Protein backbone atom coordinates (compact mmCIF):
# COMPACT_ATOMS: atom_id res chain seq x y z
CA UNK A 1 0.00 0.00 0.00
CA UNK A 2 1.54 3.29 -1.11
CA UNK A 3 0.32 6.81 -0.46
CA UNK A 4 -0.05 9.15 -3.46
CA UNK A 5 0.19 12.95 -3.15
CA UNK A 6 -3.62 13.30 -3.11
CA UNK A 7 -3.85 10.94 -0.12
CA UNK A 8 -1.10 12.86 1.71
CA UNK A 9 -3.10 16.06 1.13
CA UNK A 10 -6.31 14.38 2.33
CA UNK A 11 -4.63 13.18 5.56
CA UNK A 12 -3.20 16.66 6.13
CA UNK A 13 -6.68 18.11 5.68
CA UNK A 14 -8.09 15.64 8.24
CA UNK A 15 -5.21 16.51 10.60
CA UNK A 16 -5.72 20.26 10.01
CA UNK A 17 -2.10 20.84 9.02
CA UNK A 18 -1.38 23.13 6.07
CA UNK A 19 1.29 21.69 3.75
CA UNK A 20 3.09 23.26 0.81
CA UNK A 21 3.97 21.20 -2.29
CA UNK A 22 7.52 20.53 -1.12
CA UNK A 23 6.25 19.16 2.18
CA UNK A 24 3.71 16.92 0.44
CA UNK A 25 6.47 15.36 -1.62
CA UNK A 26 8.83 14.92 1.36
CA UNK A 27 6.10 13.51 3.62
CA UNK A 28 4.95 11.14 0.89
CA UNK A 29 8.40 9.52 0.90
CA UNK A 30 8.73 9.45 4.68
CA UNK A 31 5.22 8.16 5.37
CA UNK A 32 5.56 5.44 2.74
CA UNK A 33 8.85 4.38 4.34
CA UNK A 34 7.25 4.14 7.78
CA UNK A 35 4.09 2.40 6.54
CA UNK A 36 6.19 -0.09 4.56
CA UNK A 37 8.15 -0.92 7.70
CA UNK A 38 4.95 -1.26 9.77
CA UNK A 39 3.67 -3.72 7.14
CA UNK A 40 5.64 -6.48 8.97
CA UNK A 41 2.73 -6.77 11.42
CA UNK A 42 0.68 -8.46 8.71
CA UNK A 43 2.76 -11.63 9.24
CA UNK A 44 1.59 -11.98 12.89
CA UNK A 45 -1.22 -14.45 13.49
CA UNK A 46 -3.80 -12.45 15.47
CA UNK A 47 -6.70 -14.84 14.88
CA UNK A 48 -8.96 -14.84 17.93
CA UNK A 49 -6.82 -12.32 19.88
CA UNK A 50 -8.79 -9.63 21.71
CA UNK A 51 -7.31 -6.15 21.15
CA UNK A 52 -5.56 -4.50 24.10
CA UNK A 53 -7.10 -1.05 24.21
CA UNK A 54 -5.41 0.55 27.19
CA UNK A 55 -2.25 0.60 29.26
CA UNK A 56 -3.81 -0.59 32.50
CA UNK A 57 -5.48 -3.94 32.86
CA UNK A 58 -8.15 -2.62 35.17
CA UNK A 59 -11.72 -1.59 34.65
CA UNK A 60 -12.30 2.14 34.52
CA UNK A 61 -13.26 3.54 37.87
CA UNK A 62 -16.75 5.00 38.19
CA UNK A 63 -17.43 8.24 39.99
CA UNK A 64 -20.51 10.20 40.94
CA UNK A 65 -21.81 12.40 38.12
CA UNK A 66 -21.43 15.55 40.16
CA UNK A 67 -20.00 19.02 39.59
CA UNK A 68 -16.77 19.22 41.60
CA UNK A 69 -15.10 22.25 40.06
CA UNK A 70 -15.93 25.50 38.32
CA UNK A 71 -15.98 29.26 38.53
CA UNK A 72 -12.51 29.54 37.01
CA UNK A 73 -13.21 31.48 33.83
CA UNK A 74 -10.27 33.84 34.35
CA UNK A 75 -7.78 30.99 34.80
CA UNK A 76 -9.17 29.17 31.76
CA UNK A 77 -8.99 32.28 29.60
CA UNK A 78 -5.58 33.35 30.86
CA UNK A 79 -3.75 31.65 27.96
CA UNK A 80 -6.26 32.46 25.23
CA UNK A 81 -4.75 34.02 22.08
CA UNK A 82 -7.86 36.21 21.79
CA UNK A 83 -10.91 36.75 24.01
CA UNK A 84 -14.06 38.81 24.19
CA UNK A 85 -15.25 39.15 27.75
CA UNK A 86 -15.65 35.68 29.19
CA UNK A 87 -15.43 34.01 25.76
CA UNK A 88 -12.73 32.71 23.42
CA UNK A 89 -12.72 34.81 20.26
CA UNK A 90 -12.26 33.34 16.76
CA UNK A 91 -12.75 34.62 13.20
CA UNK A 92 -16.34 34.79 11.99
CA UNK A 93 -17.62 31.22 11.32
CA UNK A 94 -21.19 31.84 10.05
CA UNK A 95 -21.69 34.41 7.30
Amino acid at each position, binding site marked *: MSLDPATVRRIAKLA*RIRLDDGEVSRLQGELNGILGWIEQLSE*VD*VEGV*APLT*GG*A*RIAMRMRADAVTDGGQAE*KILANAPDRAGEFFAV*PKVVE
Partner: protein
Amino acid sequence: MLCDLSILDAAAGLRRRDFSARELVGAHVDAVAALNPRLNAFITETPELAMRQAEAADRALADGSAGPLAGIPLAIKDLFCTEGVRTTAGSRILGNFVPPYESTVSAQLLRDGAVFLGKANLDEFAMGSSNMTSAYGSVQNPWQRRGSNVALVPGGSSGGSAASVAARMAMGSTGTDTGGSIRQPAAFCGIAGIKPTYGRCSRWGIVAFASSLDQAGAFGRSVADCALLLGSMAGFDPKDSTSVERPVPDYVAACKRGVRGLRIGVPAEYRMDGMNAEVELLWQNGLGWLREAGAEIVDVSLPHTKYGLATYYIVAPAEASSNLARYDGVRFGMRQDGVDLIDLYERTRAAGFGDEVKRRIMIGTYVLSAGYYDAYYLRAQKVRALILRDFTDVFGKVDALLTPTAPTAAFAQGEKMDDPIAMYLNDVFTVPASMAGVPGMSVPAGLDGQGLPLGLQVIGRPFDEETVFAVSQVIEDSAGFGARPQVRAGEE
Protein backbone atom coordinates in the same frame (compact mmCIF):
# COMPACT_ATOMS: atom_id res chain seq x y z
CA MET B 1 31.67 19.50 46.42
CA LEU B 2 27.93 19.86 47.09
CA CYS B 3 26.92 19.16 43.49
CA ASP B 4 28.49 15.68 43.56
CA LEU B 5 26.42 14.40 46.51
CA SER B 6 23.65 11.86 46.15
CA ILE B 7 20.18 12.98 47.18
CA LEU B 8 20.23 10.62 50.18
CA ASP B 9 23.60 12.00 51.36
CA ALA B 10 22.49 15.60 50.81
CA ALA B 11 19.28 15.01 52.78
CA ALA B 12 21.37 13.60 55.66
CA GLY B 13 23.83 16.52 55.42
CA LEU B 14 20.99 19.06 55.57
CA ARG B 15 19.65 17.37 58.72
CA ARG B 16 23.11 17.38 60.34
CA ARG B 17 23.41 21.11 59.46
CA ASP B 18 26.63 20.38 57.55
CA PHE B 19 25.27 22.89 55.03
CA SER B 20 22.04 24.79 54.51
CA ALA B 21 19.47 24.32 51.75
CA ARG B 22 20.44 27.81 50.56
CA GLU B 23 24.05 26.70 50.14
CA LEU B 24 23.07 23.44 48.44
CA VAL B 25 20.57 25.06 46.07
CA GLY B 26 22.87 28.05 45.48
CA ALA B 27 25.66 25.72 44.30
CA HIS B 28 23.25 24.11 41.83
CA VAL B 29 21.83 27.45 40.63
CA ASP B 30 25.43 28.51 39.93
CA ALA B 31 26.08 25.24 38.09
CA VAL B 32 23.01 25.79 35.90
CA ALA B 33 24.11 29.34 35.12
CA ALA B 34 27.62 28.15 34.23
CA LEU B 35 26.75 25.03 32.19
CA ASN B 36 23.36 25.65 30.60
CA PRO B 37 24.65 27.99 27.87
CA ARG B 38 26.73 25.03 26.67
CA LEU B 39 24.46 22.03 27.35
CA ASN B 40 20.99 23.65 26.86
CA ALA B 41 19.50 21.15 29.33
CA PHE B 42 16.94 23.70 30.60
CA ILE B 43 14.40 25.55 28.46
CA THR B 44 13.37 27.78 31.39
CA GLU B 45 15.56 28.44 34.44
CA THR B 46 13.87 29.46 37.70
CA PRO B 47 16.73 30.54 40.01
CA GLU B 48 14.70 33.07 42.05
CA LEU B 49 11.94 30.51 42.66
CA ALA B 50 14.58 27.93 43.62
CA MET B 51 16.20 30.24 46.17
CA ARG B 52 12.80 31.12 47.71
CA GLN B 53 12.03 27.40 47.98
CA ALA B 54 15.47 26.84 49.55
CA GLU B 55 14.74 29.46 52.22
CA ALA B 56 11.43 27.74 52.98
CA ALA B 57 13.29 24.41 53.21
CA ASP B 58 15.78 25.87 55.71
CA ARG B 59 12.88 27.11 57.86
CA ALA B 60 11.20 23.68 57.68
CA LEU B 61 14.47 21.94 58.56
CA ALA B 62 14.85 24.27 61.57
CA ASP B 63 11.33 23.76 62.90
CA GLY B 64 11.17 20.01 62.28
CA SER B 65 8.45 20.10 59.61
CA ALA B 66 10.78 19.25 56.71
CA GLY B 67 9.62 16.67 54.17
CA PRO B 68 11.89 13.92 52.83
CA LEU B 69 13.00 16.05 49.84
CA ALA B 70 13.36 19.36 51.69
CA GLY B 71 15.97 21.54 49.98
CA ILE B 72 16.78 19.01 47.21
CA PRO B 73 17.22 20.82 43.85
CA LEU B 74 15.55 19.04 40.92
CA ALA B 75 14.97 19.58 37.19
CA ILE B 76 11.39 19.12 35.99
CA LYS B 77 10.83 17.89 32.44
CA ASP B 78 9.04 20.66 30.56
CA LEU B 79 6.13 18.31 29.93
CA PHE B 80 4.86 18.65 33.53
CA CYS B 81 2.59 21.65 33.98
CA THR B 82 3.96 23.96 36.67
CA GLU B 83 1.70 26.65 38.07
CA GLY B 84 2.86 30.11 37.00
CA VAL B 85 5.97 28.76 35.21
CA ARG B 86 5.95 28.51 31.41
CA THR B 87 5.48 24.93 30.14
CA THR B 88 6.36 24.41 26.48
CA ALA B 89 6.49 20.62 25.87
CA GLY B 90 9.47 21.54 23.67
CA SER B 91 7.08 22.98 21.08
CA ARG B 92 6.66 26.39 19.50
CA ILE B 93 2.91 25.91 19.78
CA LEU B 94 3.12 26.17 23.60
CA GLY B 95 5.85 28.81 23.61
CA ASN B 96 3.80 31.24 25.70
CA PHE B 97 1.75 28.76 27.75
CA VAL B 98 1.76 29.42 31.51
CA PRO B 99 -0.30 26.74 33.28
CA PRO B 100 -2.74 27.95 35.95
CA TYR B 101 -2.32 24.60 37.75
CA GLU B 102 0.39 22.19 38.96
CA SER B 103 0.68 18.57 37.76
CA THR B 104 -0.03 15.99 40.46
CA VAL B 105 3.49 14.53 40.28
CA SER B 106 5.28 17.88 40.61
CA ALA B 107 2.81 18.95 43.32
CA GLN B 108 3.75 15.85 45.35
CA LEU B 109 7.46 16.66 45.00
CA LEU B 110 6.74 20.21 46.22
CA ARG B 111 4.66 18.79 49.10
CA ASP B 112 7.78 16.84 50.16
CA GLY B 113 9.94 19.98 50.08
CA ALA B 114 11.72 19.64 46.71
CA VAL B 115 13.23 22.72 45.02
CA PHE B 116 12.72 23.31 41.28
CA LEU B 117 15.69 24.68 39.31
CA GLY B 118 13.77 24.95 36.07
CA LYS B 119 12.10 23.16 33.20
CA ALA B 120 14.20 20.57 31.40
CA ASN B 121 14.53 20.38 27.63
CA LEU B 122 12.95 17.50 25.70
CA ASP B 123 12.04 16.32 22.23
CA GLU B 124 8.95 18.17 21.00
CA PHE B 125 5.91 16.64 22.74
CA ALA B 126 8.29 13.88 23.92
CA MET B 127 8.52 12.52 20.35
CA GLY B 128 12.13 11.56 19.79
CA SER B 129 15.16 9.63 20.97
CA SER B 130 17.85 12.30 20.65
CA ASN B 131 16.43 15.61 21.93
CA MET B 132 17.07 16.95 18.41
CA THR B 133 13.38 17.72 17.77
CA SER B 134 13.02 20.36 20.53
CA ALA B 135 11.93 23.76 19.23
CA TYR B 136 14.28 25.23 21.86
CA GLY B 137 17.47 23.71 20.47
CA SER B 138 19.24 20.41 20.98
CA VAL B 139 20.73 19.30 24.30
CA GLN B 140 24.38 18.33 24.44
CA ASN B 141 25.35 15.15 26.29
CA PRO B 142 27.86 16.05 29.06
CA TRP B 143 29.85 12.93 28.04
CA GLN B 144 32.35 12.99 25.17
CA ARG B 145 34.16 10.28 23.26
CA ARG B 146 37.73 9.88 24.44
CA GLY B 147 39.94 12.33 22.55
CA SER B 148 37.02 13.95 20.72
CA ASN B 149 34.90 17.01 21.30
CA VAL B 150 32.11 16.03 18.88
CA ALA B 151 28.78 16.96 20.51
CA LEU B 152 26.76 13.82 21.36
CA VAL B 153 23.02 13.54 21.96
CA PRO B 154 21.79 12.88 25.51
CA GLY B 155 19.06 10.55 24.21
CA GLY B 156 15.41 11.37 24.40
CA SER B 157 12.85 12.37 24.88
CA SER B 158 13.85 13.31 28.47
CA GLY B 159 17.29 14.47 27.29
CA GLY B 160 17.51 17.65 29.38
CA SER B 161 16.38 15.79 32.50
CA ALA B 162 19.15 13.20 32.05
CA ALA B 163 21.88 15.65 31.00
CA SER B 164 21.18 18.00 33.93
CA VAL B 165 21.62 15.19 36.47
CA ALA B 166 24.70 13.73 34.76
CA ALA B 167 26.36 17.19 34.63
CA ARG B 168 25.62 17.78 38.35
CA MET B 169 23.37 20.76 37.57
CA ALA B 170 20.48 18.98 39.35
CA MET B 171 20.50 16.22 41.98
CA GLY B 172 17.60 14.40 40.34
CA SER B 173 14.88 15.05 37.81
CA THR B 174 11.49 13.98 36.54
CA GLY B 175 10.96 12.39 33.16
CA THR B 176 8.23 10.70 31.23
CA ASP B 177 8.55 7.46 29.30
CA THR B 178 6.26 6.47 26.43
CA GLY B 179 8.57 4.05 24.58
CA GLY B 180 11.91 4.48 26.34
CA SER B 181 12.13 8.21 27.02
CA ILE B 182 13.52 7.75 30.54
CA ARG B 183 15.55 4.56 30.18
CA GLN B 184 17.41 5.39 26.93
CA PRO B 185 18.59 8.89 28.01
CA ALA B 186 19.57 7.49 31.42
CA ALA B 187 21.79 4.94 29.61
CA PHE B 188 23.25 7.57 27.25
CA CYS B 189 24.08 9.93 30.16
CA GLY B 190 25.46 7.35 32.60
CA ILE B 191 22.79 7.75 35.29
CA ALA B 192 19.87 5.69 36.66
CA GLY B 193 16.28 6.12 35.52
CA ILE B 194 13.04 4.32 36.36
CA LYS B 195 9.81 4.07 34.40
CA PRO B 196 7.30 2.61 36.87
CA THR B 197 4.26 0.51 36.04
CA TYR B 198 1.58 2.22 33.94
CA GLY B 199 -0.87 3.65 36.48
CA ARG B 200 1.67 4.05 39.30
CA CYS B 201 2.06 7.83 38.82
CA SER B 202 -0.75 10.18 37.99
CA ARG B 203 -0.70 11.57 34.45
CA TRP B 204 -2.80 14.58 35.50
CA GLY B 205 -1.14 17.81 34.39
CA ILE B 206 1.41 16.08 32.13
CA VAL B 207 1.10 17.22 28.50
CA ALA B 208 -0.31 14.10 26.81
CA PHE B 209 1.51 12.27 24.00
CA ALA B 210 0.16 8.68 23.92
CA SER B 211 -2.15 8.24 26.86
CA SER B 212 -2.11 4.44 27.09
CA LEU B 213 1.72 4.48 27.28
CA ASP B 214 2.78 7.76 28.95
CA GLN B 215 4.14 7.28 32.47
CA ALA B 216 6.12 9.60 34.73
CA GLY B 217 9.35 8.47 36.36
CA ALA B 218 12.59 9.64 37.93
CA PHE B 219 16.28 10.13 37.17
CA GLY B 220 19.07 10.05 39.76
CA ARG B 221 22.77 9.32 39.96
CA SER B 222 22.01 6.27 42.10
CA VAL B 223 19.31 3.62 42.20
CA ALA B 224 18.36 4.64 45.75
CA ASP B 225 17.94 8.30 44.70
CA CYS B 226 15.47 7.19 42.02
CA ALA B 227 13.68 5.12 44.67
CA LEU B 228 13.36 8.13 46.97
CA LEU B 229 12.02 10.35 44.17
CA LEU B 230 9.55 7.74 42.90
CA GLY B 231 8.20 7.27 46.43
CA SER B 232 7.24 10.94 46.41
CA MET B 233 5.89 11.03 42.84
CA ALA B 234 3.81 7.82 42.91
CA GLY B 235 0.36 7.20 44.29
CA PHE B 236 -3.33 7.19 43.54
CA ASP B 237 -4.89 10.34 42.11
CA PRO B 238 -8.66 10.58 41.57
CA LYS B 239 -7.97 13.14 38.81
CA ASP B 240 -6.42 10.43 36.57
CA SER B 241 -8.86 7.61 35.82
CA THR B 242 -5.96 5.27 34.95
CA SER B 243 -4.08 5.93 38.17
CA VAL B 244 -4.17 2.82 40.33
CA GLU B 245 -5.42 2.80 43.90
CA ARG B 246 -2.81 0.82 45.80
CA PRO B 247 -0.34 1.78 48.49
CA VAL B 248 3.16 3.02 47.59
CA PRO B 249 5.78 0.77 49.23
CA ASP B 250 9.05 1.96 50.78
CA TYR B 251 11.17 1.85 47.61
CA VAL B 252 14.38 2.95 49.36
CA ALA B 253 14.11 -0.02 51.72
CA ALA B 254 13.47 -2.31 48.73
CA CYS B 255 16.86 -1.35 47.26
CA LYS B 256 18.56 -3.26 50.08
CA ARG B 257 16.70 -6.55 49.60
CA GLY B 258 19.34 -8.25 47.46
CA VAL B 259 18.63 -10.87 44.81
CA ARG B 260 19.35 -14.12 46.66
CA GLY B 261 16.85 -16.72 45.47
CA LEU B 262 15.41 -14.52 42.73
CA ARG B 263 15.00 -15.92 39.23
CA ILE B 264 16.26 -13.52 36.54
CA GLY B 265 15.17 -14.10 32.95
CA VAL B 266 17.32 -13.56 29.84
CA PRO B 267 15.03 -13.10 26.84
CA ALA B 268 16.52 -14.81 23.79
CA GLU B 269 14.91 -12.34 21.37
CA TYR B 270 16.93 -9.42 22.79
CA ARG B 271 20.13 -11.03 21.44
CA MET B 272 19.91 -9.57 17.97
CA ASP B 273 21.89 -10.27 14.82
CA GLY B 274 24.81 -7.88 14.55
CA MET B 275 24.53 -6.87 18.19
CA ASN B 276 27.22 -4.49 19.44
CA ALA B 277 29.90 -6.72 21.05
CA GLU B 278 30.50 -4.31 23.94
CA VAL B 279 26.79 -4.23 24.74
CA GLU B 280 26.71 -8.04 24.61
CA LEU B 281 29.72 -8.30 26.95
CA LEU B 282 28.18 -5.84 29.41
CA TRP B 283 24.99 -7.90 29.44
CA GLN B 284 26.98 -11.06 30.25
CA ASN B 285 28.78 -9.17 33.03
CA GLY B 286 25.45 -8.10 34.48
CA LEU B 287 24.16 -11.67 34.49
CA GLY B 288 27.39 -12.79 36.17
CA TRP B 289 27.01 -10.19 38.92
CA LEU B 290 23.44 -11.28 39.64
CA ARG B 291 24.50 -14.95 39.71
CA GLU B 292 27.30 -14.15 42.16
CA ALA B 293 24.80 -12.30 44.36
CA GLY B 294 22.68 -15.43 44.59
CA ALA B 295 20.17 -15.12 41.74
CA GLU B 296 19.36 -17.94 39.35
CA ILE B 297 19.66 -17.00 35.65
CA VAL B 298 16.96 -18.50 33.43
CA ASP B 299 16.70 -18.42 29.61
CA VAL B 300 13.26 -17.23 28.55
CA SER B 301 11.46 -16.24 25.37
CA LEU B 302 9.40 -13.15 24.50
CA PRO B 303 8.44 -14.24 20.98
CA HIS B 304 6.73 -11.02 19.85
CA THR B 305 9.64 -8.72 20.78
CA LYS B 306 10.51 -7.99 17.14
CA TYR B 307 7.04 -6.54 16.54
CA GLY B 308 7.20 -4.13 19.48
CA LEU B 309 8.51 -1.13 17.55
CA ALA B 310 6.14 -1.44 14.59
CA THR B 311 3.21 -1.82 17.00
CA TYR B 312 4.40 1.22 18.91
CA TYR B 313 4.63 3.30 15.73
CA ILE B 314 0.95 2.67 15.08
CA VAL B 315 -0.46 2.95 18.61
CA ALA B 316 1.56 5.97 19.79
CA PRO B 317 0.98 8.17 16.69
CA ALA B 318 -2.71 7.22 16.68
CA GLU B 319 -3.11 8.39 20.27
CA ALA B 320 -0.92 11.44 19.60
CA SER B 321 -3.01 12.52 16.60
CA SER B 322 -6.03 12.53 18.88
CA ASN B 323 -4.33 14.16 21.88
CA LEU B 324 -2.71 16.90 19.81
CA ALA B 325 -6.02 17.87 18.17
CA ARG B 326 -6.46 20.27 21.10
CA TYR B 327 -3.76 22.61 19.73
CA ASP B 328 -6.08 24.63 17.55
CA GLY B 329 -4.99 28.22 18.21
CA VAL B 330 -8.22 29.03 20.04
CA ARG B 331 -8.01 28.30 23.75
CA PHE B 332 -4.27 28.42 24.52
CA GLY B 333 -0.95 28.38 22.75
CA MET B 334 0.06 30.19 19.59
CA ARG B 335 -2.30 31.32 16.84
CA GLN B 336 -1.70 32.13 13.19
CA ASP B 337 -4.61 34.10 11.82
CA GLY B 338 -6.44 32.81 8.76
CA VAL B 339 -9.29 33.81 6.49
CA ASP B 340 -11.68 31.51 8.33
CA LEU B 341 -11.62 29.11 11.26
CA ILE B 342 -10.33 26.07 9.29
CA ASP B 343 -7.60 28.22 7.77
CA LEU B 344 -6.68 29.44 11.26
CA TYR B 345 -6.38 25.82 12.50
CA GLU B 346 -4.28 24.74 9.53
CA ARG B 347 -1.92 27.71 9.63
CA THR B 348 -1.53 27.54 13.41
CA ARG B 349 -0.67 23.85 13.38
CA ALA B 350 1.64 24.19 10.35
CA ALA B 351 3.62 26.94 12.08
CA GLY B 352 3.41 25.52 15.61
CA PHE B 353 4.45 21.89 15.13
CA GLY B 354 7.90 20.65 14.05
CA ASP B 355 8.59 18.01 11.38
CA GLU B 356 8.62 14.91 13.63
CA VAL B 357 5.36 15.90 15.33
CA LYS B 358 3.70 16.51 11.95
CA ARG B 359 4.98 13.16 10.71
CA ARG B 360 3.47 11.33 13.68
CA ILE B 361 0.16 13.20 13.55
CA MET B 362 -0.08 12.29 9.86
CA ILE B 363 0.68 8.59 10.50
CA GLY B 364 -1.79 8.54 13.38
CA THR B 365 -4.51 10.23 11.35
CA TYR B 366 -3.98 7.77 8.51
CA VAL B 367 -4.05 4.57 10.61
CA LEU B 368 -7.26 5.74 12.31
CA SER B 369 -8.97 6.84 9.08
CA ALA B 370 -11.95 5.05 7.56
CA GLY B 371 -10.89 1.97 5.61
CA TYR B 372 -7.49 1.60 7.32
CA TYR B 373 -8.46 1.36 10.99
CA ASP B 374 -8.81 -2.45 11.00
CA ALA B 375 -5.70 -3.11 8.92
CA TYR B 376 -3.43 -0.93 11.05
CA TYR B 377 -4.81 0.22 14.39
CA LEU B 378 -6.95 -2.78 15.35
CA ARG B 379 -4.23 -5.20 14.25
CA ALA B 380 -1.64 -3.28 16.29
CA GLN B 381 -3.85 -3.50 19.38
CA LYS B 382 -4.04 -7.27 18.90
CA VAL B 383 -0.27 -7.58 18.55
CA ARG B 384 0.01 -5.43 21.65
CA ALA B 385 -2.14 -8.00 23.48
CA LEU B 386 0.31 -10.72 22.34
CA ILE B 387 3.28 -8.67 23.60
CA LEU B 388 1.58 -8.36 26.98
CA ARG B 389 0.86 -12.11 26.97
CA ASP B 390 4.59 -12.78 26.38
CA PHE B 391 5.46 -10.82 29.53
CA THR B 392 2.64 -12.39 31.57
CA ASP B 393 3.84 -15.89 30.59
CA VAL B 394 7.47 -15.11 31.39
CA PHE B 395 6.66 -13.57 34.77
CA GLY B 396 5.11 -16.90 35.72
CA LYS B 397 8.65 -18.31 35.55
CA VAL B 398 10.97 -15.46 36.61
CA ASP B 399 10.92 -12.49 38.98
CA ALA B 400 12.60 -9.96 36.67
CA LEU B 401 14.36 -9.68 33.32
CA LEU B 402 17.80 -8.28 32.50
CA THR B 403 18.50 -6.80 29.05
CA PRO B 404 20.61 -4.04 27.54
CA THR B 405 18.86 -0.62 27.63
CA ALA B 406 19.86 0.58 24.16
CA PRO B 407 21.64 -0.99 21.15
CA THR B 408 24.54 1.51 21.28
CA ALA B 409 26.09 4.28 23.36
CA ALA B 410 25.20 7.93 22.65
CA PHE B 411 25.57 8.97 19.01
CA ALA B 412 26.56 12.34 17.56
CA GLN B 413 24.14 15.21 17.06
CA GLY B 414 22.82 15.09 13.50
CA GLU B 415 23.32 11.32 13.06
CA LYS B 416 20.22 9.29 12.10
CA MET B 417 18.30 12.50 11.38
CA ASP B 418 17.55 11.73 7.72
CA ASP B 419 16.11 8.26 8.44
CA PRO B 420 13.17 8.19 10.89
CA ILE B 421 13.27 4.38 11.17
CA ALA B 422 16.99 4.30 12.11
CA MET B 423 16.13 6.75 14.90
CA TYR B 424 13.16 4.65 16.02
CA LEU B 425 15.40 1.55 16.35
CA ASN B 426 17.04 3.15 19.39
CA ASP B 427 14.03 2.07 21.40
CA VAL B 428 14.02 -1.58 20.32
CA PHE B 429 14.81 -2.85 23.86
CA THR B 430 12.64 -0.38 25.76
CA VAL B 431 9.41 -0.33 23.74
CA PRO B 432 8.14 -3.85 24.58
CA ALA B 433 7.95 -3.08 28.34
CA SER B 434 6.09 0.14 27.50
CA MET B 435 3.59 -1.75 25.35
CA ALA B 436 3.01 -4.18 28.24
CA GLY B 437 2.87 -1.38 30.86
CA VAL B 438 5.44 -3.09 33.10
CA PRO B 439 8.15 -1.26 35.09
CA GLY B 440 11.68 -0.87 33.72
CA MET B 441 14.86 0.73 35.00
CA SER B 442 18.18 1.58 33.37
CA VAL B 443 21.34 1.38 35.49
CA PRO B 444 24.79 2.55 34.35
CA ALA B 445 26.94 -0.58 34.18
CA GLY B 446 30.12 0.24 32.28
CA LEU B 447 31.90 2.25 29.58
CA ASP B 448 32.39 1.33 25.95
CA GLY B 449 35.76 1.48 24.16
CA GLN B 450 35.30 5.19 23.48
CA GLY B 451 34.67 5.95 27.14
CA LEU B 452 30.90 6.39 26.84
CA PRO B 453 28.44 4.95 29.38
CA LEU B 454 26.28 1.91 28.66
CA GLY B 455 23.20 0.87 30.63
CA LEU B 456 21.47 -2.36 31.58
CA GLN B 457 17.71 -2.57 31.83
CA VAL B 458 15.83 -4.39 34.59
CA ILE B 459 12.19 -5.17 33.79
CA GLY B 460 9.76 -6.29 36.50
CA ARG B 461 6.23 -7.54 37.08
CA PRO B 462 3.39 -4.99 37.10
CA PHE B 463 3.54 -2.94 40.33
CA ASP B 464 6.65 -4.78 41.52
CA GLU B 465 9.01 -1.82 41.32
CA GLU B 466 10.51 -3.12 44.59
CA THR B 467 12.12 -6.11 42.85
CA VAL B 468 13.27 -3.83 40.02
CA PHE B 469 15.03 -1.61 42.58
CA ALA B 470 16.54 -4.60 44.40
CA VAL B 471 18.00 -6.07 41.20
CA SER B 472 19.15 -2.64 39.97
CA GLN B 473 20.94 -1.99 43.27
CA VAL B 474 22.95 -5.21 42.91
CA ILE B 475 23.93 -4.18 39.36
CA GLU B 476 24.96 -0.75 40.65
CA ASP B 477 26.98 -2.18 43.54
CA SER B 478 28.69 -4.80 41.36
CA ALA B 479 29.43 -2.47 38.43
CA GLY B 480 31.09 0.08 40.68
CA PHE B 481 30.36 2.71 38.04
CA GLY B 482 32.33 5.70 39.30
CA ALA B 483 32.95 7.42 35.97
CA ARG B 484 31.87 11.05 35.58
CA PRO B 485 31.23 13.05 32.41
CA GLN B 486 33.79 15.53 31.09
CA VAL B 487 31.33 18.43 31.30
CA ARG B 488 30.06 18.82 34.88
CA ALA B 489 29.72 21.31 37.70
CA GLY B 490 33.10 22.40 39.04
CA GLU B 491 34.84 21.44 35.77
CA GLU B 492 33.45 24.15 33.51
